[in-house]
């Protein structure tokens, strides 16, 4: 029963207005179209404005083969074909008012094209033509290598970059996920390898397509015709096994005024039965503004501008990482405060007030993540990648509503042992 707010003046400001919690969120799956090549196209329409976007997911991520070749190939996809050079292709995309972007994660290369809905098919056609006819001109390769080398030198000046790399290497040790590009690697950029990568992992590596926008049926048919030119990815990956390192490592960077911290451990992704409950625990620990880490290390001690704890996932596994940048003199104190927060979660039950707050906060954030067609499609893609469906979010809501402090303490005891952590600092 919800108490109606009475607007009687004068207002008593010391009493908070009554709040309502969220009981139900409507999750709506996109339309699923299976192409002749076996690839699934997920389409969301009914947008009520002119925007549209297509996302092509290729199984061409940085951990699949050689990360250098993966990065260069993704960056050069439409930088030269037998008919047009990089500038002419970009001009063609400009002429239909579209924006083009490629991003690369460990599993996937994602090509995104944004356009007004009456231009999307035209924009995609331009991309398609030059992707299939890509010749990877040597001078474009040289140009990109030069660019990346300088970016690398720049990144190396940042303590956050140094800490993040070392963390990834040590945590994902002895696996292709822990393999990173080194500066010297740029010397072995090779056109033949890039061409082979393009053919194997892009033209023959389409995994999924996400489409959003009010596109005419006839244009959709044309688009589907084009997409059938790809072969579906048939990549089979070896099962990942952890050989993660633990313990403390510090990387010295001269003249730094802050240290970057990365503290974490192997974990799991959405497919694991503890994922939802642990993500609630993680929120309490460090994943919102009022979290334990933020309250203690920023809002009480003023050691940092920000500190956060996150569960990062890929297709095969997930891991926990706490990240922050702190004044050099506060590095040790910060690390020991993080340890104290772990112990508190293991030794004391989370109080009702805090837990209720986090429950409401998470439900509110989920409502926001489901707001509007773009957000809803992202929400869908986030579970679809693990072969889960929208039922995951129903379970998420039910688990948030029912979780008990005892369960959270159990999880803290199991997963937040300080001796299991890899503790990296740079600065």
């Amino acid at each position, binding site marked *: 029963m919800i108490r109606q707010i009475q607007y009687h003046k004068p207002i008593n400001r010391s009493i908070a207005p009554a709040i309502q919690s*969220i009981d139900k969120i409507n999750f709506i799956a996109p339309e699923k179209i299976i192409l002749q090549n076996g690839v699934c196209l997920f389409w969301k329409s009914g947008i009520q404005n002119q925007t549209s976007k297509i996302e092509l997911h290729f199984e061409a991520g940085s951990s699949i083969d050689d990360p250098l070749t993966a990065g260069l190939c993704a960056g050069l996809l439409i930088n030269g074909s037998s008919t047009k050079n990089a500038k002419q292709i970009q001009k063609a995309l400009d002429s239909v008012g579209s924006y083009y972007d490629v991003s690369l994660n460990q599993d996937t290369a994602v090509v995104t094209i944004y356009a007004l809905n009456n231009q999307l098919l035209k924009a995609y056609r331009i991309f398609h033509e030059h992707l299939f006819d890509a010749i990877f001109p040597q001078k474009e390769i040289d140009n990109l290598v030069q660019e990346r080398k300088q970016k690398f030198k720049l990144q190396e000046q940042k303590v956050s970059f140094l800490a993040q790399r070392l963390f990834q290497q040590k945590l994902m040790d002895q696996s292709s996920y822990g393999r990173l590009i080194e500066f010297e690697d740029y010397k072995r950029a090779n056109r033949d390898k890039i061409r082979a990568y393009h053919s194997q992992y892009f033209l023959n590596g389409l995994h999924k397509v996400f489409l959003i926008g009010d596109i005419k049926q006839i244009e959709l048919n044309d688009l589907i015709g084009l997409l059938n030119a790809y072969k579906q990815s048939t990549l089979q990956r070896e099962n990942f096994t952890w050989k993660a390192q633990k313990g403390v490592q510090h990387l010295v960077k001269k003249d730094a*005024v802050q240290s970057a911290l990365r503290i974490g451990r192997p974990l799991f992704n959405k497919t694991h039965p503890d994922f939802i409950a642990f993500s609630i625990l993680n929120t309490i620990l460090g994943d919102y503004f009022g979290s334990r880490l933020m309250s203690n290390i920023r809002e009480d001690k003023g050691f940092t501008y920000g500190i956060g704890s996150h569960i990062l996932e890929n297709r095969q596994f997930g891991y926990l990482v706490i990240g922050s940048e702190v004044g050099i003199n506060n590095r040790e104190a910060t690390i020991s405060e993080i340890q104290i927060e772990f112990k508190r979660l293991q030794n004391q039950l989370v109080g009702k007030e805090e837990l209720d707050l986090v429950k409401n906060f998470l439900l509110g954030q989920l409502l926001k993540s489901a707001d509007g067609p773009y957000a809803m499609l992202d929400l869908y893609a986030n579970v679809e990648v693990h072969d889960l469906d929208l039922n995951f979010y129903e379970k998420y809501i039910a688990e948030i509503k029912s979780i008990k402090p005892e369960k959270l303490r159990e999880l803290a005891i199991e997963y937040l042992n300080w001796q299991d952590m890899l503790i990296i600092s740079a600065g």
Partner: protein
Amino acid sequence: MIINFEQFTLGNGLRVIFHKEPSTPMAVVNVLYDVGARDENENKTGFAHLFEHLMFGGSINIGDFDSPLQEAGGQSNAFTSNDITNYYNILPAHNIDTALWLESDRMLSLAFTPKSLEVQRQVVIEEFKQRYLNQPYGDAWLQLRPLAYRKHPYRWATIGKKIQHIKDASMEDVRTFFKKYYHPANAILCIVGNFELETIKQKVDYYFGDIPAQKKSTRKIAKEPKQKKFRSKRIIRNVPTDAFYYAFAMGSRLDPQYYLADLLSDHIGNEKTGILYSELKIKKKLVNEIGAYITGSIDNGLLIITGKLNPRINFEHLDGALWDVLEKYTSRPITQPALKELKLKMQTAKAFQDQGLLNRAMNLSYFELLSKANMINEESTNYMRIQALDLHHFAKGILRKNNCSLLQIQAKR
């Protein structure tokens, strides 16, 4: 897409904008205060931004800002620029009262606890280090501003001139600042969500109506004199590559030439297709990266051309070539197809921006501050009406050496 909205003003001078969006279960409550770093005393810089942090440290009747909002399923944040301080809350629409209760209480009065000031001073100092000192090229704008501005308070950045200014901030400064700038007549409230206008009027009046009225102070800001001579400065830093910032003086946000400057910076600065990229990176191989953009500030802004040199290229190589390229560019007008492309890209970008509820709330508030909220619906026309010759004349006027301040950051070897 037309963005419809309603407007009303409370008796105490608070301006309110309501934009109904029936499709969302969320609500946005945005509060813009007409105060930014340009309003600071030159010996107490960084204060508007430090103050923004203090606004989350508890208000007169409420111990902590964030907890009640999070409990209502919402979240909040804020930013400070040289011109404005903007606070926003996104929460489930059925709990909108919580955001109005919180925002109205901190407009009424802050708690002013010494602990909050002490901690936030530390936090902001760490922010200063993280973003401006511990990053390669992080202090570029701390150096460029006093070069490009001689009189106007834009000569310092929102973070402040130096850490000492933040250390020196006193409780008395905090109280004075609050009293001067944090009151209804100096604020614009914008609400977006699926509500009825009458409901919004009732709620806003209930929470904000009894906050005492105060007269808006008049702003006395030194006008930046017209630049007459080229200025330059070279600094040496521990960075991997030489970097350059050419800053051209442009007009204010309300100057019709703002739209010309925006299109111009896109046209010359676009990756791959822009003249800077194709001439200086691809053809002459002088730079590793180059681009252009405008600052878009309320008072006189800057059009920036910035980039990094390739190894073994020196600043003099680049400088000669850059002025040649600009001369070539300003010698003839943009072609019709190129202008059409630029406008179409602008339309696409605008359609995507207007989609976000928060964007709409912030823009409505910002345009209301500039002149009127409905500018949000007139922006497109202002770009679409631009003719090739307008752009040509404008480019010739602005891309001159006498109108430019140059900062060079040389890598320590």
